[in-house]
């Protein structure tokens, strides 16, 4: 094509921001919806509740034992309970929402996950309790909340609970529940009472009250575990968390640490709940509520200090059994034996049910307890139909619809700078849909593609290719959401009742496909996202990972077990640890350091790039939150933006940034070492990673100003949503609002993970050069110069010379 565009380059530059603006990706309006329901009156009785409701969680937690049946002492405190107590006491309760909060926002939203039930629970007569509250603007006549269990509808009710949280109780039909994993699907269709705009859809929300949404089993036996596997039914508490109380009487002994960690990993893998934490203590305290498991670990001789009766046989050989203990309640797991060797065998028995060899490839990531189906792991080029990804054909009558699925990528995924996945979209829209509507694709909530609808009169899209940048892909599960924003003439006029009209406008078919091209695979260090995603590099270790910590502090052991258990869940296998190695003896092995900042050897601090002064200064300044000059400046600049030609220039700048993602980093040729990091005053926890001094290993440091902060910080970090935000070379967790922030990787080492292949190396080079644009340009220019000279030489020796 020899025609040129030079003359109107200026035209193009000037006008394109305007074009791009129409595809508004501004997500800011979405945010206000979620905090809104955070302040419902805590104790207000729900007027619509047809049965005496369970006491509100706040009141129930300290004393109410849901499984009190065999415990004699419980009888007298129970008398102090509110009137509901006798009936409630007979029941076993199982909270089912594995999230700290669950909000359905927009016109259509759906969540699905699975709940593990013991055979006794499945057999029991069961009631399903649902508590929720919704925004005032949700029109009850056009909005419905649906819950189905194992495919049979349990709740299908109008959403009409804007004043107070409402509780619903329904009987779960017999034979719906079964032992093992039960699929739960909750969905909400919501319509605005008056408004037809796209913006108004962001005002729609329904919040599920996690504390009053549960299964309650009539059968008293349902509250007890009979087999070790029943640990998988541990479930969650009213906040969606799972807690393991690990009681290790000989916690201080070196020999006990590794088994403790190993047992923790095994239990975590077995329960596989999204937000699991471990409390390790020497004696423990009775804390028996849903979502909590109590485990006693130690040689038989030491158990008598903590248990009323030591299980028979513990003196003789390895044993892992469930006992009813007067202090710790029923279903207390005891792992014991005559000595630590026997205990290790007992732990191995538990572990081997959930372990897998380091070399086996995972086809899926086990996510069913918070997201169904299990997320497929894409290790190479692959094609997946939406139906395989759990997205079913969705017809839609509203304005804005969002549906999502998740795909997993391995820890050595290295295509974020150049890669593009493709969605082959099968969809259709009716003639009501006006041009200007668009279909957007989000990856991990970042806009990744947008397809404008440009034609009148409706269209069937058959395998329309949408290129999705992989810039926001991270190792592990990634959520890909497809959102259609539909504009119609009817919405523009918005006649009364228009919001509730049910004519279908848009459909996404489950025959659509997600196409992952083959992508570069090479691991990097540091890369905390790899830990978050698949526990890499610890997941691949074939030796026991040195775990260096201060064993005398229960908080630190709790933090270490919680952290290692979380990595194990990410890795899908147990990670053997060696807690007896001294910091100095680690060498070039992979290692994890868990310590309060004052205990961290300065050599380790220096290695992972944390400033040495940190150990003295951090923690003291916790209270003083200094205003951040840079952030304030940015705010002011934002405020003074827009209007006039300067506004045009800056919107052009925005367009350039959005389109090309150019940053000064693109112009480095040789990235230097980043300056040492000093944690800000508000940071409660710091995770830092760097290659070991003699390269070959990866060191990860988990540290906090105090041991208490360390335990709480790790617990906050291991929460599913927080955990997935971990990345870069340093991640900090803020005390204030549980905020995770990351420091990007400046310089890294490559670690080969795949057998050598030219195709893979080509893609690796492509990704590296895509991230280092100037290097590419320079290499291309140098090679062109070489080619020019070679051509000159060739022409000089071929053909006529004069």
């Amino acid at each position, binding site marked *: 094509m020899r025609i040129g*565009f030079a003359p109107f380059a200026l035209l193009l*530059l000037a006008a*394109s921001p305007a*074009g791009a603006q*129409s595809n508004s990706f501004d997500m800011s309006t979405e945010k206000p919806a979620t905090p809104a329901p955070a302040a419902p009156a805590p104790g207000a009785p729900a007027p619509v509740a047809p049965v005496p409701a369970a006491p509100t969680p706040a009141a129930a937690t300290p004393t109410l034992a849901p499984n009190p049946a065999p415990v004699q002492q419980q009888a007298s405190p129970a008398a102090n309970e509110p009137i509901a107590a006798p009936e409630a006491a007979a029941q076993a309760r199982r909270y089912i929402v594995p999230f700290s909060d669950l909000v359905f926002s927009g016109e259509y939203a759906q969540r699905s996950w699975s709940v593990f039930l013991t055979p006794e629970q499945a057999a029991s007569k069961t009631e399903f309790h649902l508590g929720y509250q919704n925004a005032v603007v949700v029109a009850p006549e056009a909005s419905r909340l649906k819950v189905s269990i194992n495919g049979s509808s349990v709740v299908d009710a109008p959403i009409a609970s804007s004043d107070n949280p409402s509780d619903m109780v329904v009987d779960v039909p017999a034979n719906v529940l079964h032992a093992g994993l039960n699929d739960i699907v909750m969905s909400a269709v919501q319509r605005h009472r008056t408004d037809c705009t796209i913006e108004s859809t962001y005002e729609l929300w329904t919040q599920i009250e996690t504390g009053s949404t549960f299964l309650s089993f009539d059968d008293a036996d349902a509250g007890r575990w009979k087999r070790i596997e029943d640990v998988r039914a541990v479930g969650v508490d009213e906040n969606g968390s799972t807690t393991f109380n690990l009681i290790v009487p000989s916690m201080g002994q070196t020999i006990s640490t590794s088994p403790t960690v190993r047992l923790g990993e095994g239990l975590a893998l077995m329960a596989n709940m999204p937000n699991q934490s471990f409390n390790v203590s020497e004696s423990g305290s009775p804390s028996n509520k849903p979502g909590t498991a109590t485990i006693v670990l130690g040689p038989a001789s030491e158990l008598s200090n903590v248990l009323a009766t030591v299980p028979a046989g513990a003196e003789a050989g390895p044993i892992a059994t469930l006992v009813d203990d007067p202090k710790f309640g029923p279903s207390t797991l005891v792992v014991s034996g005559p000595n630590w060797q026997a205990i290790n065998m007992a732990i191995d028995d538990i572990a081997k049910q959930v372990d897998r060899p380091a070399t086996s490839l995972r086809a899926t990531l086990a996510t069913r307890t918070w997201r169904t189906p299990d997320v497929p792991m894409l290790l190479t080029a692959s094609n997946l139909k939406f139906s395989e990804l759990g997205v079913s054909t969705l017809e839609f009558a509203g304005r804005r619809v969002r549906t999502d699925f998740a795909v997993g990528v391995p820890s050595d995924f290295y295509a974020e700078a150049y890669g593009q996945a493709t969605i082959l979209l099968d969809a259709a829209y009716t003639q009501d849909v006006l*041009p200007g509507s668009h279909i957007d694709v989000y990856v991990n909530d970042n806009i990744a593609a947008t397809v404008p609808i440009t034609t009148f009169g409706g269209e069937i899209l058959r395998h329309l290719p949408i290129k999705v940048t992989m810039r926001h892909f991270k190792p592990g599960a990634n959520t890909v959401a497809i959102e259609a924003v539909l504009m119609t003439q009817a919405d523009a006029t918005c006649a009364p009742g228009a919001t509730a009209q049910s004519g279908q406008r848009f459909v996404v078919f489950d025959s659509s496909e997600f196409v992952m091209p083959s992508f570069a695979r090479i691991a990097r260090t540091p890369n905390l996202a790899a830990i978050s995603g698949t526990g890499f590099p610890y997941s691949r270790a074939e030796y026991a990972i040195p775990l260096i910590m201060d064993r005398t502090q229960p908080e630190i052991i709790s933090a270490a077990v919680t952290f290692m258990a979380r990595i194990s869940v990410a890795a899908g296998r147990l990670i053997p640890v060696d807690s007896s190695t001294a910091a100095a003896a680690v060498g070039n092995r992979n290692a994890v350091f868990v310590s309060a900042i004052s205990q961290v050897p300065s050599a380790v601090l220096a290695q992972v790039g944390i400033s040495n002064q940190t150990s003295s200064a951090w923690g003291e300044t916790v209270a003083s939150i200094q205003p951040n000059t840079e952030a304030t400046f940015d705010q002011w600049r934002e405020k003074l933006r827009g209007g006039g030609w300067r506004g045009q220039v800056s919107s052009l700048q925005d367009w350039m940034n959005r389109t090309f993602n150019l940053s000064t980093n693109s112009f480095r040729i040789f990235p230097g070492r980043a300056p040492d990091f000093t944690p800000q005053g508000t940071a409660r926890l710091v995770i830092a990673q760097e290659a070991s001094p003699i390269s070959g290993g990866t060191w990860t440091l988990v540290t906090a100003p105090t041991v208490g902060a360390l335990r709480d910080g790790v617990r906050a970090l291991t929460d599913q949503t927080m955990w997935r935000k971990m990345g870069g070379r340093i991640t900090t967790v803020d005390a204030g609002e549980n905020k995770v922030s990351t420091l990007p990787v400046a310089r890294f080492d490559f670690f080969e993970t795949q057998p050598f292949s030219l195709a893979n190396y080509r893609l690796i080079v492509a990704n590296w*050069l895509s991230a280092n644009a100037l290097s*590419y340009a320079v290499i291309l220019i140098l090679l062109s110069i070489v080619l020019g000279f070679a051509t000159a030489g*060739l022409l000089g*020796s071929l053909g006529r010379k004069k």
Partner: protein
Amino acid sequence: MRKFLMVVQWAVASACVLTMVTLPISLETQLVAGMLVLFGMMVLKLIRPDGIWRLVALAFGTAIVMRYVYWRTTSTLPPFNQLENFIPGFLLYLAELYSVMMLALSLFVVALPLAPRPSRANSNDRLPTVDVFIPTYNEDADLLANTMAAAKGMDYPADRVNVWLLDDGGTVQKRNADKIGDANNAQRRYEQLQKLSADLGVKYLTRDRNEHAKAGNLNNGLAQSTGELIAVFDADHAPARDFLKETVGYFDEDPRLFLVQTPHFFLNPDPVERNLRTFENMPSENEMFYGIIQRGLDKWNAAFFCGSAAVLRRAALVETKGFSGVSITEDCETAIELHARGWHSVYVDKPLIAGLQPATFASFIGQRSRWAQGMMQILRFRFPPFKRGLSIPQRLCYMSSTLFWLFPFPRTIFLVAPLFYLFFDLQIFTASGGEFMAYTLTYMIVNLMMQNYLYGAFRWPWVSELYEYVQTVHLLPAVISVILNPRKPTFKVTAKDESITTSRLSEIGRPFFVIFGVLLVGVAMTVYKVYAEPFKADVTLVVGGWNLINLIMAGCALGVVSERGERSATRRVKVSRRCDFELNGRSLQGTIENVSANGARVLVFGADLDELSKDAEAGIRFKLFADGSEAVLPVTIRNFERTTDSIAIGCLYMPTEAVHHRLVADLIFANSKQWEQFQLSRRGNPGLLRGTFWFLRLAIFQTSRGLLYFWRDLRGASAPLPAGQLAEKRT
């Protein structure tokens, strides 16, 4: 061995660049790399535009072009299941690939053109016997007389050169035509030319039947003559005095040499130049071919015969039984044949003949149709890439020369493609505004810069596009018809001696106004869409911009088909030559200022106005370049005017004897230096930016002129002249 090493070295370097180019890098990296490479090219252009750095700059450009092709291939084609988008999208893709392929071929051809060869006029070469052929069909006796006189006037021993007039207009077949009028004309022509030839000392030759057109005519001449070498001049191509001296020497240097080709220099502008008024200051269209491409072909021993202004070796022609006549471009075809048999060719970059080219747009198109159709026939019957005996560089060179004439297809597609989007909303090029900027825009600028690098001084920016566009409209059907019926086209002689006396629209100019109108609606559609559909304004602007460029080109073409009326029938050549003006028996000092084939303008000193009168008879006495003798050329005075210190007299030649034609030829054609100077005066590279602005101004002016002519034409203010006999068909 060294050659092999060089090839390996080059192959390795190419492989490295290719590997880099085909990496699937991100958009930002592409943008940065594109900008940087562009910047590098600009810097090189400013400081070292020649030698090895020219090749480096071309390598830069190649890298960007290859990146564009990679991207275009891997991520911009519409999905296959949307056939309504895919088919036009794929056609556009093919058109672009064709352009890139032609760019690659021309890069190969002109990578390192041979430097002009030194003059041989004064070397002591052996002077072999030469037969000069002047084939004619329907040209005027006056025109032929000038050519023959010029041929006779060549500086060469008279006993070693024979000039032959090969007349196909006076064949037995013609003289016995069924139409008695035609037969009489042929008979009259036969007698007239026989006499003229005899007067000038030229051998007249005709034949029985007009078989195989020009090739047959030349072969007839071959059969009747015996000279070692053959020089061929078209009827209107008069050679300079030094033509043979400059060319024959090469044949002794290389016994396998079959051809020495020299450029065609034209005294008159082609219709594009005439109507756009660029003849005096912009290099002519064919200068790119003769100034660069033939030199590039010469590097690869692939300079080919262009039908005239060349010397050939009889021994070589005997091998192929004369000139080939399968296609209607017998010249190029003969050259392929001989190259394939291992003969060599040489190109001498020095204008040694001066000729005429078609004056009207219609005959210009007729000439180009013949070339295009002939090249298609060669492609069809001799397919150069697989022609046995040709070297690989020769195959590539002939591919470049023949495939070039497929340009009407991509041109048409580029013209229509944006309309698919603007009118029918088809998405035939799937890319975002950002990608357009990073890939397409960079590619286009690089492409223009590479053209400028390759042809800068010989072809100004956008002029190639204009020439291709104005030919496309009529060449497309011609090329399609020859593809469908490769044996159908027949040789048509291009008329070159027409003149246009009144300003009018070309009789084949209507389609250009229709196209212009459609594109104009496209622009209106762009504006409408930007406001009505703001959500895709970026793509609309990109496509609309493309359409706008097409519109500018189409507007400029309106000027091309609006033929300007001209006073003088033939082009005047500037000369500056002392003479004596003989008037009423007095001899006045004077200078011949310019000359044409019909007359001259003389500045006379010391004359009085009242001595002069219109139609008065006079004579110009001057010294001949040929032999230094003096002679008088009789003229009549047509007009006169006073200048500051002299009187300028315009006069018309009144040749009565053969010797007078020699005088005219000596005046116009003797000195080839002046042609070179004229060419050099037009050469100069305005640069991409200045050239673009110049073109834009030209286009705007020509659009308005074209519309004015169109409006006048609609009003019927000036009835167009009858189309006339523009091209006569030979049987």
